[in-house]
């Protein structure tokens, strides 16, 4: 019944250490429900999205550009015979767009109608964040995407790193 077991094998290396956990949500005394977030890099900043939302992480297959598509669409790829539209998450978030490197990955996420691909510059790691450690974001990024920011977290106490948590459902609406 775990999220992990329903994921197809392979291509999920970044999250593999957690695959043995029965659930991606557990309770930590006093600090609220713990949710697992996948951290990834867009441009120079680190972002996070709930692991439960992400079905698969892909190395970008050959992409086909679609003329006349909206600007945030990078193109389409074939994932096991299914045509998947790939969005440029950086463009959706109005961030700088340095050229993609070999570390670039596509996160497959399902909104209620279709499976979409989200291109990110790099997949970092998985953080387990208790609810109490997540600050509510007021305005972090551009005003029109700020709605998609569900919170801010500092995953390491020893370092001054900021993780911007995204609500993919709002972003892909």
């Amino acid at each position, binding site marked *: 019944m775990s999220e992990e077991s329903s994921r197809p094998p392979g291509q999920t290396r970044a999250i593999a250490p957690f695959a043995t956990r029965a659930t991606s949500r557990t309770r930590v005394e006093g600090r609220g429900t713990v949710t697992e977030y996948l951290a990834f890099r867009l441009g120079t900043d680190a972002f996070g999205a709930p692991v439960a939302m992400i079905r698969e992480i892909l190395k970008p297959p*050959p*992409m*086909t*550009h*679609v*003329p*006349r598509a909206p600007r945030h669409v990078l193109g389409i790829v074939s994932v096991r015979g*299914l045509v998947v539209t790939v969005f440029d998450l950086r463009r959706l978030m109005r961030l700088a767009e340095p050229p993609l490197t070999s570390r670039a990955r596509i996160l497959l996420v399902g909104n209620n109608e279709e499976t979409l691909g989200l291109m990110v510059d790099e997949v970092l790691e998985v953080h387990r964040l208790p609810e109490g450690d997540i600050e509510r974001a007021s305005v972090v990024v551009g005003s029109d995407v700020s709605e998609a920011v569900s919170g801010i977290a500092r995953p390491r106490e020893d370092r001054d790193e900021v993780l911007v948590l995204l609500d993919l459902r709002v972003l892909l609406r």
Partner: protein
Amino acid sequence: MSDVIDRAREEFFAEAQEIIEGLGRDVLGLDDARKRGSQDPELVNDVFRAVHTLKGLAALFGALRLAALTHELEEILDELRLGRRPLDDRALNLLFQATDICGRLLQAERDGDESPFPELTEFLATLRGDVAKGVASGSGVAPFDLDPGVLAVLTEYEEHRLRTNVESGLSLYRLRVRFELTTIDESLERLKSNAKPYGEIITYLPTGGGDDIDRIELDILLASKESLEVLVDVLGSVGADIEPVPRVGGKRPSQRPRPRVAPAPVALSRATSHPGPLGAPPELSRSASLRSVSQTVRVDIRKLDLLMNVVGELGIVRSGLERLDERLRLGGSLREIRADLVRLERSFERHLEAMQQGILEVRMVPLGQVFERLARVARQLSREADKDVHLVVTGAETEVDKLIVEELSDPLMHMMRNAIDHGIETSSERLAVGKPEVGTIALNAFQKGNHVVIELEDDGRGIDTEKLVMAALARGAIGADEVRSTSRKDILNLIFLPGVSTRKDVTEVSGRGVGMDIVKTNIGRLGGIIDIQSELGIGTKLSVTLPITLAIIRALVVEVAGRSFAIPLTNVQEAVVMPAGGVHVIDDRETISLRGSTLRIARLATLFDLRTPDEAAPAREYVVVAEAGQNRLGLVVDRLIGGQDVVIKAFGPSLRNVRGFAGAADLGDQRLGLVVDTLALLDEMSAGRARSAQDTSPRV
């Protein structure tokens, strides 16, 4: 010939069996729901429809006893459906018993057993007694502050549902939603499924409001026990604007709703007792019942056996390859091995082709299934509209891909509705102009090459082009200066423009065209085209031309700016080398002459913005000549790669608004290739005539 009859009979048994089984399940469902103290009006409708279909089938195949039983049953179910009689134990028992008898009658029919069936006679007597006792319902008007215009357009069934919901103390909400015309089908389905757990949708009415020609605004009446907050929460995401409809004597309204629930004057002035002229979206949504719910295709086992054989043959090819590999390893003669490899490849190709053909055949179903449903709708509509209509059907045995058949139901149903509501005159009008009293609607289907043509022809009043032009002018759909240069055919085609066709002024004067734009969109989505012919006073003919299958198509693969595109061969006439220096610019449009006639051309590189301005096109280009209906267009490409069978895969909803592509296909080099939607491009090019140049740029 007897073979055909046998096959048809076999199909009858299979279908009847399926229906009776479904019937059993549904009656059980009704029983369950009743035990839980609720009821599911949709389910009653399902049972009603199932029995109705069964009746038609039985009569068609001379299963008279089954026909008699279902005929009586239908009466009872109609009473139940309209709430004229309660769904109580007695009714349920009758239904259970009936299902059982239906099953046994079918078995007897199959065995050719014609011995008397005392149980049936007895049961029929009970049923008849019951129908006679049927309780008529009072026609109390709902105690809600509903505009009389709205009440007037509710069907008897909708009124009954409204009454029932009100009686059970539910609140009534009005949802105002704007839909994109192009995506209304999906959006409405989504809304319905979101709303289903929270209440019952009573009806949909177009408001006639909103000036955007690409959208339509609907008012949806929803009965629900939930509070406004809950509904806003659930349905807000689809962009619905929700207001409670206050009860008369109003205790409820906490906020003052807009004064009217109201279809705009359009609907009001035309309010009648049947839902006909309400406009396209409600028709399409209501007619959802016309589609068969099942995603399954019934397949003759012999077709599957053939496929199985092919698979066996392919297995032989595989072991042949294995032997070759073995011989290679053992150092056999390369020459011989090569010769055998070529032989194997040929055999492989042949079997693959057979398999493709076999699978296509499996997907094919006769149009008769849809036609039968259409005939039923026609009968019902003509009764509602109080017009005498004689329906003549030919070509019901024409086979089309299952997918296409399903998608066709709604547009065809819409065309039928238009023909009856607006095409055919009343008996007195007909007699006055010297036509036969009974109107005729012909529904014809036939195969034409790789296409299937479906025609719907009526001998009604036809379209008054003069008034159509006036209306289109008033809408700004065409300019005054264009009128004289517009051909009669183009004028008739104005009926397909949104904003012209959905407006009252046109539908009244032309007597047709409600929602024809949606019909055209739906047919276009299937890769088909629709043509219209009409003579004032004589009648109207709509022809729909469709590809036989969508699944696998033969395509011409071309290259433009280093990218591969597939152009479906169905619309391709030929491909020629672009004549050197032969481009003439006429009226801002590029043309070439091809064997003495002028051909308009469009450069794919420009159309799809594939080259930066400083990138030059190759010295030698090719022109792919595409044709649909009367339109011809030359698509200019860099290189022709060759013919290939491709499987078209649709884009996801995120790219649905991208025009010009039918989808993507695996062209064999890992990367997906785009399949050009020739019809859309042809349309785009000819639409450019009526619009300004900027308008043709993609709207995304």
